[in-house]
C-alpha cells in the first residue's frame, strides 16, 4: 500500500498528464466520429454571450449590405405574391394545408467559420424559441446547414461546409436526386454526388433541396452546377455546385421547423426493426 502511494506521489505529474491527455483525446475522437457527438461546443452562456457582444459591433459595419439583402428578398417575395395570385386561389386543398406544417423561426448568426474541414456556426436562438436539433437552417439566398446542439438561448449549426454534413438535393430541371457533401476544398463550392448516369445534367442547372429529406422542404435553392465529373468507379456523376449563399458573409437566417418530424421519426422507428 505504501509503495502504491509512493508511486502515485512520485509520478503525480505524469499521471495527471496521462489523465488529461486521455480526456482530451476522447473529446477529439468523439467530435470527429459521428453526428451530434460534440460535447464541447459554443452553444453555452459563456461563448454565446461573448459572440453576441462581438456580433453587435460587427453588424454595424455590415448594415448597408444586410439591408440590401433584405430588400432584395422582400422584392422577390412581393414578385411571388403579385404573379402567383391565380394559382394561390386554385391550389388544391391538401397542399394549402401542407403549408401550415412548416414553421419558420427567425434568427441571427453570431459566429461563423468556414476555413476548416468541420465548420460550425453559432446562432442566437435556442430551445426557449423552440429550436431543436436536426432542424434546417436557410438564409434568404439558400441553405446554410442543420441544427446540431441546442442550449436555452443559443444553438450550433453544422454548416453545409462540413465534411460530416450530408443533405439530400436534386437537379431542379430533371428531378434527379443526389447527396450534397463538401470535400473541404473551397468555401464557395459544394459537391453533389450519386447523380445517376442517365440524368442529362448541364452546366448552369439549378440545384435545390430534394423532397426526401424531412429536414428541408422541397425546392429550397442551393446553387448552380459549375463542373461535372464522371466517377469511373461507380458510374455516377459528381457535380461541383456553386453556392448561392456567400458562406463567408452570413447574418440573418431562418430556422425551419417541420411540425410533422416527430410523427415521421416515430413511424420510422417503429418500422425499422421489421426490416
Amino acid at each position: 500500500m505504501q509503495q502504491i502511494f509512493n508511486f502515485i506521489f512520485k509520478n503525480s505529474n505524469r499521471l495527471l498528464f496521462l489523465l488529461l491527455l486521455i480526456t482530451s483525446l476522447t473529446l477529439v475522437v468523439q467530435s470527429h466520429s459521428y453526428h451530434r457527438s460534440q460535447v464541447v461546443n459554443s452553444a453555452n452562456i459563456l461563448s454565446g454571450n461573448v459572440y453576441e457582444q462581438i456580433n453587435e459591433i460587427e453588424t454595424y459595419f455590415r448594415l448597408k449590405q444586410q439591408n440590401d439583402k433584405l430588400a432584395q428578398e422582400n422584392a422577390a417575395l412581393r414578385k411571388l405574391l403579385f404573379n402567383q395570385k391565380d394559382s394561390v386561389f386554385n391550389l388544391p386543398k391538401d397542399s394549402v394545408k401542407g403549408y401550415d406544417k412548416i414553421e419558420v423561426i427567425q434568427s441571427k448568426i453570431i459566429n461563423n467559420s468556414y476555413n476548416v474541414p468541420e465548420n460550425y456556426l453559432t446562432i442566437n436562438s435556442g430551445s426557449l424559441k423552440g429550436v431543436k436539433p436536426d432542424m434546417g437552417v436557410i438564409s434568404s439566398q439558400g441553405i446554410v446547414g442543420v441544427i446540431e446542439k441546442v442550449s436555452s438561448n443559443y444553438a450550433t449549426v453544422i454548416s453545409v461546409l462540413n465534411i460530416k454534413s450530408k443533405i439530400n438535393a436534386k437537379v431542379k430541371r430533371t428531378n434527379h436526386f443526389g447527396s450534397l457533401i463538401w470535400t473541404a476544398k473551397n468555401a464557395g463550392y459544394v459537391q453533389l454526388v450519386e447523380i445517376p448516369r442517365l440524368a442529362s445534367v448541364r452546366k448552369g442547372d439549378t440545384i435545390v433541396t430534394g423532397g426526401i429529406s424531412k429536414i428541408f422542404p422541397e425546392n429550397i435553392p442551393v446553387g448552380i452546377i459549375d463542373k461535372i465529373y464522371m466517377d469511373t468507379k461507380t458510374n455516377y456523376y459528381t457535380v461541383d455546385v456553386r453556392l448561392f449563399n456567400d458562406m463567408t458573409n452570413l447574418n440573418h437566417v431562418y430556422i425551419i421547423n417541420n411540425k410533422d418530424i416527430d410523427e415521421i421519426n416515430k413511424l420510422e422507428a417503429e418500422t425499422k426493426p421489421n426490416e
Partner: protein
Amino acid sequence: MNSTLLFNIIRFVFLIAAQVIIFNNINLFGFLNPYPYILFILLYPVNTNKSGLLIASFFLGLTMDIFSNSGGVHATACLILAQIRPAFFRFAFGLSYEYQTIKINDRLSPERFTFIFISILTHHLLLFLLEFFKFDFILDALLRTIGTTVFTLLVSILIIYLFKPTKK
C-alpha cells in the same frame, strides 16, 4: 507567489480574449489565423510546480475549443506542448537552464527565438493533424501548419515586444 498567480490569471483571460475577438477573425488568404494564445504556455514561469501548468494549459485549450467548436483539438495540443516544454528549454538554452533564470519575454536572442519557434511549430502541427484527422487532408494540414507557424511567430514576437516589462 500570489502576485505571480494573479498575473498568470490576467494573462490567461487577456490572451483568450485577444484570440477570440481579434485573431480568430483575421482569415489571411481566407484560411490563416494566428494562434498567439499559446504564449501563455511559453511565458509560464519556469521553476514552478508542473501540475499547475498542465491543468492551466488543458483549460486554456478547452476554452479555445468551446469558442471554436473544435472538439478537444486545442486542449490536446496545448497539453502536449506543456508536457514537453522542459525538453524544448533544454534544447534551446542548454542543459543548465534551471539554474539560470530564463526570461522569454525579453530581447530576442537566438536561444529565445529557437524556443518560441519550435514550440509554435509543435503545437500547430499537432493542432492541424488532429483537426483535419484524415489521411486525405495530410497535405492541407502540413501546408496550414507552415503558414500559420510563420504568422503566429510574427504576431507572438510583436506581442512580446509590446508588453515587455519596462524596468531597467
